[in-house]
């Protein structure tokens, strides 16, 4: 589970559909690995306005990263500063949760992560 995915995933449980607390999911007992992936600057700039920065700050802290700046960096700032862009790339695309859980603060459901793959299959009464 990459951090970029975490920034877009919500709890899948039916009763969590319209709850603000169902996003973001919160990693628990997370084991991280860092992959080596080529920087895709255009893709990052493209999704920048769609990132939920507050959620990303929360998740980054939970995963043990140093605190992110309070404000979403602007496109111009990232274009001008390769280092900033690479940091974002490193966090969003290269960082993976290999083992652990994702927890919903609204319903308490825990999604297991194994070998990097989060299990979002739900028992039918939660769908």
């Amino acid at each position, binding site marked *: 589970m990459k951090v970029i995915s975490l920034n877009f995933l919500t709890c899948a449980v039916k009763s969590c559909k319209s709850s603000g607390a169902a996003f973001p999911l919160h990693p628990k007992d997370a084991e991280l690995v860092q992959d080596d992936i080529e920087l895709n600057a255009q893709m990052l700039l*493209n999704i920048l306005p769609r990132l939920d920065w507050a959620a990303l700050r929360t998740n980054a802290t939970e995963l043990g990263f140093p605190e992110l700046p309070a404000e979403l960096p602007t496109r111009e700032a990232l274009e001008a500063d390769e280092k900033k862009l690479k940091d974002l790339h490193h966090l969003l695309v290269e960082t993976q949760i290999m083992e652990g859980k994702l927890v919903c603060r609204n319903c308490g459901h825990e999604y297991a992560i194994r070998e990097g793959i989060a299990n979002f299959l739900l028992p039918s009464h939660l769908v």
Partner: protein
Amino acid sequence: MSRPEDTLAADIHYNDSEARKYTTSSRIQNIQASMTRRALEILDLKSPSLILDVGCGSGLSGEILTAERPEDGGPHTWIGMDVSPSMLDVALQRDVQGDLLLADMGQGVPFRPGAFDAAISISAVQWLCNAEASDTSPAGRLARFFDGLYASLRRGARAVCQFYPKNDQQKTMITRAAVRAGFGAGLLEDDPNTKNVKLYLVLTVGGSAGDGRGGDITGVVDGMDNVDVLDSRPKAADDKSGKGAIKKGSKAWIVHKKEQMERKGKVVKTTSKYTGRKRRVAF
């Protein structure tokens, strides 16, 4: 020919030995790759995008997204969901770049609204026509999938689902569920009336598109739709004769695209007069 969809649940059918075929059979790999390339062509993405791959399996389709060249708008980043642990296991072994999720599309699409620039699904959605358990219905699963997919796409986005309907009834059932969810929808058929026929459900999310045109199904299918009535082939060929760089969106480019489409097959827009006459897909 018997269809696995009729007898087994997807996660049972796609077991380890079935999944292995997706690494060992170059025939399967070629077919999946060419259908994915076709879907990408229809998506017509202009820059590196975030794409959802529904029923990503072993990642054959996703790898094509990763490999898309910069001059063609790539490379893309993708997130795949699949219900079969065996297929995902093969994806892990093949070390694909996309992020993988074990999830059942019939339970919905668990992403926040507007997350993706586009979605593809190659050879998967026909599985929704078979209820997985006694407490679910195909109609309910189709609705949850298409409603969820619609919400997860940004305004102006497109999705392309290549699928294998068992019959016209399944084709209608799937397309209708997409339209009910709010999509603009068209059906594109490559190599019609052959045993290699391939069906693509082309979906658009309305609203202001980033590039100002992706959201309207008539915009997407217009050029293609004309293929059906393009009986002035020689004229079209003339237009192309002035070589050189064809600018995207220019008349020459559109004509060129039309010809490409024509060579490959034809498009039936769901609301076009052709639909009523030939297929009777009523939404």
